[in-house]
């Protein structure tokens, strides 16, 4: 089974002081470290595990500038067979729709049975890639997928719903699935594992190679324009819960229930 995994290269904002840039439409990303989108880490792991079971080939692809080669190489170390970087200066400013279009032009040019990606990205949390890819490719798609298994050209899986419910589904292949986190335990990638794939070539494909027109990508090809980005207003201070441990725990549980933290 041939699987294509779409990976996103996202800024790591966990310990950073975020600053909004001059235009007020994005954060300053120059000083930020970038990393593999955590959700996609589960997607590549799932793809490699399926390949180990069923055979076939895993191809990883990302729409990102050259720096993201690091992420794709890590995917090769995780067990992917080939990796492609899709980038052209014209891609700058693409929204989810334009990125989906770029990915689709890549996917359509090769044989495939399954496209996997993470349901969300850690940066803009659009959650739209899987659905758009499915629509553009004309195949079924689903989000928040776990417990995947493949038999006789059909793929079955669970979808995680609210309240701990699972929806069990079956689809014909080819299909596009956006995975949930935690559906597997991603393997560790050691320095040596990356070193082993250091010489594998990762080609970069641009407008020409993908057969795309400039008007279809970047800001021009996008349907969403960001008007303004602002920092959230500072919230109220933290509440310290005092008293005996049992009382404090009861109070904490109550607050969590009230605010929707637990069911």
């Amino acid at each position, binding site marked *: 089974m041939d699987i294509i995994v779409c990976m996103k290269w996202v800024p790591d904002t966990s310990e950073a002081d975020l600053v909004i840039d001059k235009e007020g439409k994005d954060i300053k990303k120059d000083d930020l470290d970038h990393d593999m989108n955590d959700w996609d880490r589960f997607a590549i792991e799932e793809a490699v595990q399926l390949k180990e079971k069923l055979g076939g080939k895993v191809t990883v692809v990302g729409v990102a500038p050259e720096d993201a080669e690091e992420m794709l190489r890590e995917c090769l170390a995780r067990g992917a067979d080939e990796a492609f970087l899709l980038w052209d200066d014209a891609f700058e400013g693409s929204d989810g729709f334009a990125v989906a279009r770029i990915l689709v032009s890549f996917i359509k040019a090769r044989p495939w049975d399954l496209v996997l990606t993470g349901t969300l990205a850690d940066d803009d949390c659009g959650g739209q890639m899987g659905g758009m890819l499915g629509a553009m490719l004309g195949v079924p798609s689903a989000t928040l997928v776990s417990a995947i298994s493949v038999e006789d050209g059909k793929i079955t899986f669970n979808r995680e719903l609210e309240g701990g419910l699972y929806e069990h589904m079956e689809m014909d292949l080819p299909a596009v699935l956006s995975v949930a986190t935690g559906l597997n335990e991603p393997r560790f990638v050691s*320095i040596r*594992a990356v070193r082993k794939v250091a010489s594998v070539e990762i080609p970069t494909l641009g407008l020409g190679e993908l057969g795309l027109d400039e008007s279809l990508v970047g800001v021009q090809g996008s349907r969403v324009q960001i008007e303004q980005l602002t920092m959230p207003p500072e919230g109220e201070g933290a509440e310290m819960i005092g008293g005996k441990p049992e009382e404090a725990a009861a109070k904490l549980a109550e607050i969590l229930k009230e605010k929707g933290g637990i069911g």
Partner: protein
Amino acid sequence: MTMFEPASVPIAGIPAPVLSFIILVTAVCFFAYVMYRRIDLLRKALPDPRFYELGKRALLAVKYGFGQWRQPRYLGAGILHILLFAGFMILSLRSLTLIGRGFSPEFHLPLLTGAVGFGYDVLKDYVVLMVLIVCVVCIVRRAVFKPARYDHPGGGGHGSEAYIILGLVSALMVTDMIFDGSALKLNGAEGHAGLLPAATLASAFMPESGSPSLPYLHVGGYWVHILVFFGLLNYLPVSKHFHVITAIPNVFFANLDKGTIKPVRHGVKDWMELEECGIGRFEQFTWKHVLDFYSCADCGRCSDNCPAATVGRALSPRMISIKARDYAYTHHPVLWSPPNNGDVQFTGDVITEDEIWACTTCGACEEECPILIQYIDKIVDMRRYLVDQGAVPQSLQKPLQQIKKKGNAYGGNKAKRAAWTKDLEGIEVRQLAEGDAADYLFFVDSCGSFDPRIQEITKALARILHRGSVDFGILGNDETDSGNEIRRLGEEGLFEQVAEKNIEAFRARKFREIVAFDPHAFNAIRNDYPEKFPIVHASQLIAKLLRSGKLHLSGEHVKNRLVTYHDPCYLGRHNGIYEDPRFVLNQIPGIQMREMSRSYSRSFCCSGGGLLLWYENEQEKERMGEVRVRMAAEIGAQVIVTACPFCLINLEDAVKTTGNEGKMEVIDLVELIDRSLT
């Protein structure tokens, strides 16, 4: 000398010397073949160059082998073992003599004739009685009092072998006594009775002189003795009592480099090029690893002291030796061919991942083993294999990736490594640029830079150094994680990267010594880094400042409170620094100190430092820190002083979870001195 000496009495028509010859040749041949098989496995194992510093090694053999140095750490069992060992040494001459007596009634070892020979006979007779008594005590101890450390809670033990060996040794002694006791009667030599207590004791149970059964006892006692002796000899290499033969060589070839980890593969230039790295299959152990397995006597001292075993984690160090030895004996058998391995993976199935990750590398097992068996190297080698396979616990993956990306496990922004310096009032901490010089390079490490609690120690040390007029500086953003736990978790490639970065930063600056308050960083730089830089632990530098009168302390902070000191594993056991922190504490006027039951080299690990702070173990029933805090509570301590930031974090948590909040304070030595400055 009687008329009925064994050498002169044919057995079933076979002349005794012929029978002796047959027994000797058969037994020695079989023994030699078993030993050949055992040595063959050592030869097939991977290399480990241990044939250097032979003088030092001879001293180890004298001290820990013949001197039984570590035995008295368990006083009762230790004394019993020392007596047995001494008995074995003395009676080995007797055994050789008796073998000779099967060939000639006159046989004596050279020098053991005349008065010396008689003197030896007297000595040996006392020793025979002593060994017999020790065997009986050992049997009763095991069978009736059942010391907990002989248990094998998870199964797989070989406890019954102890009874076999004690039974055989007892039989040796009793047959010797029958042989000599009957000789006393046959010779009518009761005059020597007072000098030969064992023989006399045996003879008391025998018929009067002239009885026709006496020759049977004499000759029969002899042959049973000989058969038991050769039976015992051949039993050693197929049982847990192989240590009788291998312990001295094992001690001789013991590890001489404390505090560090073996290279991935000895004799390989670039380990990165290896097909597989670490230990996944038994064949990847070194010969010294295998000799360790052969030598384990299953005494249980390692596991008895193992903090992981204490809190219910899957690890029991001795079971690694026992399971590996069982595996070795099954797959490299003395006779016939080995069974089909099937899908059994040594690392993963024989030794499980839960066991392998449970270890904190505290070194308590290695400190306790009477014959210097190593465990940490093996565990790290198995981790190296698992890391290579990508099988790392999820809880450890994120911090490891963070170090790869940002040089620290906290995910902290590289550019903020020195941000703590801004909180210091009135003290300017110099960030040494390349080419700069200072007397001391303060290596803060990731924990001291990013963990808000540990930053308090960082600032405290900066204040102490400032007060002591020490010229010091930090690496600032050029510092990277020390890598102590990275290496011990088996990610050698990442360790090499961080070590290289720090070494480059050290090289680019001039300093007399590095100072670190984290024993893990101290250990990595001191023992692991391929290039050596002079380094001291903060407790050593503070001791020096106190000795030279540059710091003055008040006893206010610990006034009227009982203080105990918790030895951090990487300061004490791995680097032998026990006295400097205690010296520093004792400089605090009026301080009341008391030691916990487990202190110095028997200190109890708090559950590990560095990346282990992130590790989540599912099997443990309680936290190691909680066990430790209870030990402090037992002696009524109100202040636990430690000299390691991770001990501080773990013990502070444990004080809360054991309900001791407000009753007990945990404080780092550096913080305590900072607060006690006048």
